[in-house]
């Protein structure tokens, strides 16, 4: 594959403008998912010389922008790898932000001729893809892992050290909620179907929409507070909590047999649905392991399948009963 690395350093600035904010908003909302990349190469921030530090990042716009905006008022080289427009952590997990790409970038930008020193500062979360030892052996450059978050870079650069806090991933409310709009986009066709369904059967359609939105927005928000360890279980608990007001509305103060069947079917269909949405959130969290997720899939997918199938049969039975007049 021909390298798209810029052969000469490209000047850039730390301050982000309206264009960048617009790009980030689109990325967060899931628009033009493949379009958020910057040209790989060596960028210069401020007035660099052969002693300037070199910080490495991915060529996803938000990765690059997080790095340069954290370095306001500083002079530095930014080495942007060709990670196919994918962020540091995801690219490192798949080896795209890896030893080979870093070596390619060093060679393509002729970094060794541009700096006297041999130190590279990499984001900590690129470590799954990069072998510091191999980089040293094959290029002479020493990889230093900086903090997880770009915002901690000023502290790291001033002291040369990371505090324990800088080394740990966090998953705060903001980090969790910022992911929801992209999830919304991923389920857009399902939601459009549900909106159509809501036109035909307003009560059930609305319930399904609220449950889906609950799974996409409320689930990440409430993640640490929902009981259980498996995300699927937490999601099913949330599903049950969200169905309950509807069920109470339908059955209070009295309910006939058809309503009871409908309510049971609602739980059987919607609880696993929110559980499934929650299961799919594992890849967005910074703590799910492959072994854990595999185990979770094998434990909870059968339960969800059995519940959904029973719910579908019960709904069909109830509907036929009402239409046939024997319920």
């Amino acid at each position, binding site marked *: 594959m021909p390298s798209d690395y810029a052969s000469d350093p490209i000047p850039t600035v730390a301050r982000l403008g309206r264009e960048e904010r617009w790009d980030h908003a689109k990325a967060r909302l899931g628009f033009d998912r493949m379009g958020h990349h910057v040209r790989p190469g060596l960028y210069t921030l401020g007035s660099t010389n052969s002693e300037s530090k070199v910080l490495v990042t991915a060529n996803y716009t938000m990765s690059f922008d997080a790095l340069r905006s954290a370095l306001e008022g500083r002079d530095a080289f930014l080495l942007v790898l060709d990670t196919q427009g994918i962020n540091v952590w995801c690219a490192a997990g798949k080896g795209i932000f890896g030893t080979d790409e870093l070596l390619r970038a060093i060679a393509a930008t002729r970094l060794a001729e541009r700096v006297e020193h041999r130190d590279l500062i990499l984001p900590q979360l690129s470590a799954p893809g990069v072998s*510091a030892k191999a980089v040293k052996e094959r290029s002479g450059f020493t990889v230093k892992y900086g903090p997880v978050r770009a915002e901690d870079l000023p502290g790291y650069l001033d002291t040369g050290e990371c505090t324990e806090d800088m080394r*740990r991933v966090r998953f705060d409310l903001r980090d969790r909620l910022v992911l929801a709009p992209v999830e919304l986009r991923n389920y857009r066709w399902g939601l459009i179907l549900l909106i159509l369904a809501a036109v035909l059967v307003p009560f059930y359609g609305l319930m399904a929409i609220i449950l889906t939105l609950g799974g996409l927005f409320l689930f990440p928000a409430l993640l640490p507070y929902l009981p259980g360890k498996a995300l699927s279980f937490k999601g099913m608990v949330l599903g049950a909590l969200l169905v309950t007001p509807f069920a109470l509305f339908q059955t209070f103060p009295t309910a006939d047999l058809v309503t009871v069947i409908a309510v049971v079917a609602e739980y059987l269909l919607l609880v696993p649905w929110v559980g499934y949405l929650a299961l799919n959130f594992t890849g967005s969290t910074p703590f799910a392991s492959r072994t854990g997720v595999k185990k979770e899939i094998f434990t909870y997918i059968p339960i969800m399948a059995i519940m959904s199938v029973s719910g579908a049969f019960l709904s069909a039975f109830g509907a036929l009963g009402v239409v046939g007049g024997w319920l």
Partner: protein
Amino acid sequence: MIEIEVLDLEQGSTIKPINTLVFHPDRCVNCGICLQVCPHRVFAPGERRVMMVNGADCMECGACQKNCPANAIKVDSGVGCASAMIMAALKGRDEVNCGEDCCR
């Protein structure tokens, strides 16, 4: 060779590992790079070698294994993403990758 597996202490079991992380303290050269790369503080500094103190929190990212110069850490690293695994299973592929809808 001493193998220490991560034990599922919550279930009181002594044989059931909850992830694939294995630390060989006898090979550790105490360089400390695992302390730097681990995002979950699985390892802690020790006097002559690092200590694995929080193995259950390992998310199998593989950063420690990739950077350990002494091959003292083994982990079957991978991406803990259910939707990617389900998608891979549905499409009959082994490994998951980034696509239009995921991992940007």
